[in-house]
């Protein structure tokens, strides 16, 4: 991987330039957008209004059964923000998201680079393995992993116990919250890496060999190649992938809910998704749950502001 670097200016991104939207006074765009807007309003309109509305009302089980809900202003929000529970769950979720999304991105990029540099047969084997993992439905994923880590007959404890001096038979991986979240993080990373790896790899194939050879001739080193050529080309993909992983890992619900069903349960083992579900459906505090959902949305927007701003800027051109 010893190569030479070209002057960066001579490089041209191989991707086709995005077309400039046209300015037209035509009803066509409205017609095109109408079905999607109707679908959104049909499925989300009423629930969304209900949610915003009820985040300002005292809406509990009694209200669900007919008592008139009362407006309480910001009480629901204040209750959440002044208590310690919401902050605790939020902090846990953020750490969980950072670790999981970080691990997913690092592993995904690493695997993509690896795939670019190995023989075809090895690459295809790896790709097939990853497609299999990616294709596993979430409930099946969680069930299988629960079986792998089963305390009595799980293969993980069996393998670990083969190590000299280690006896893990009967060890329950879902017992302590830390271990519980570690397991959840590993499973989610396992399931998300294929998407990242295959996308990044697809992006890497866009880096044309001519460019690479030119760079090699100019004497660019492996690291320099990565930094000067590969990363700039990959940047848009990486930004989006990172954003998606962040959003998905922050509001993860299904995996945590299922894992709680298999082992330990309770607020100690909650992340934002299960916490909001528990507040609402579980305990009947729908108003507070709605407020919590609104706060999470605001938080997510703040977190992904870098992207939203970029998008709007690009749009304003």
């Amino acid at each position: 991987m010893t190569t030479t670097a070209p002057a960066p200016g001579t490089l041209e991104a191989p991707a086709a330039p995005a077309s400039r939207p046209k300015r037209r006074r035509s009803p066509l765009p409205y017609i095109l957008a109408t079905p999607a807007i109707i679908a959104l309003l049909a499925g989300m309109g009423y629930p969304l209004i209900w949610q915003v509305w009820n985040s300002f009302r005292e809406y509990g089980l009694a209200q669900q059964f007919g008592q008139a809900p009362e407006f309480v202003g910001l009480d629901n929000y204040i209750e959440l923000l002044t208590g310690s529970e919401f902050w605790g769950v939020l902090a846990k979720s953020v750490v969980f998201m950072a670790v999981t999304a970080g691990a997913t991105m690092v592993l995904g990029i690493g695997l993509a680079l690896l795939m670019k540099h190995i023989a075809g047969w090895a690459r295809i084997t790896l790709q097939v393995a990853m497609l299999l993992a990616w294709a596993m439905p979430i409930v099946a994923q969680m069930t299988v992993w629960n079986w792998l880590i089963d305390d009595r007959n799980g293969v993980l404890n069996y393998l670990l116990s083969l190590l000299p001096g280690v006896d893990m038979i009967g060890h329950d991986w879902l017992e302590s919250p830390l271990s519980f979240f570690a397991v959840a993080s590993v499973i989610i990373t396992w399931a998300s890496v294929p998407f990242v790896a295959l996308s990044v790899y697809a992006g890497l194939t866009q880096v044309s060999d001519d460019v690479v050879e030119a760079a090699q001739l100019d004497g660019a080193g492996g690291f320099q190649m990565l930094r000067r050529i590969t990363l700039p080309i990959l940047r848009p993909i990486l930004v989006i992938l990172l954003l998606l992983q962040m959003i998905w890992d922050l509001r993860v619900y299904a995996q945590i809910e299922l894992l709680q069903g298999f082992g330990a349960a309770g607020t100690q083992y909650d992340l934002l998704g299960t916490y909001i579900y528990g507040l609402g459906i579980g305990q009947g505090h729908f108003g507070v749950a709605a407020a919590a959902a609104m706060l999470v949305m605001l938080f997510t927007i703040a977190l992904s502001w870098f992207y939203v701003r970029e998008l709007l800027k690009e749009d304003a051109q």
Partner: protein
Amino acid sequence: MTTTSLPARRKPRRSPMRHIGAGVALVLAVAWAFPVYWMVNSSFLSVTTITALTPTWVPFGGTLANYKNVLQGSTGFTDALLMSLGVTGVALVICIVFAFLGALAISRFRFRGRKALVLAIILVQMLPAEAMFIAQYQMISGLGLLNTLAGVSIIYVAMVVPFTMWMLRGFVAGVPADLEEAAMIDGCSRFGAFMRVTFPLLAPGLVASGVFAFLQVWNEFALASIILTSEQQETLPLWLRNFAQPSSLGMLEWGQVMAGSTLVAVPVIVFFLIVQQRMTQGLVGGAVKG
């Protein structure tokens, strides 16, 4: 698994790095495939084999009894499969069509309200869904669509349209409008130019976006458990979740549960294998354009 890029013209190098790389790749492939393999392996084992102290690595002399029990018994697997296929099929087709049209609008045209629409489809995805279940139930019930395919589909379409539209927007923007214009100069109508030139270039993108919509719908179970309360209307994830509960004898029959899991995973794996080539192509052009 091939890509659209130029064939590799790498100079043949006898680098040991490549062998090490291939070795690492194989180890990783095993790591990623192992849970899937273990699921299939366990699904062929009898109760006594599966609970033995030493794991059975390869199901030699395995049994099909687990599959028989799942498929023949009154477990409801077939009903759930049909329900899942129905819901996913309907929601997916509607979602792709609507999202595609919407993506054309926001990437090919500039119109009043466009920015609001773009923002809306992004923000909607950041909203946790778990607090809206009650309202969604009320709405579906008000429409008289509880326990129906139409009822879940309405919500599922709304759930996946934003992301699909967002993703497709990148693909559409990636196909230069100049190409279409060139075709129009050659005498095609705008629609004809679109169908002949742009649409084929978008196919991989549609597939890649479709895969995501498919996965989201196929996997959903929280809302389904509220809207589909009748046992006859379960979707597969709901079915598997209930099936993986311990029996009245307490022990989870892992062999049967793994047979059930395998059956739930098979349709998706088949689907992936069918679309994988286009999907990989799609990934190339897709998210890239943000």
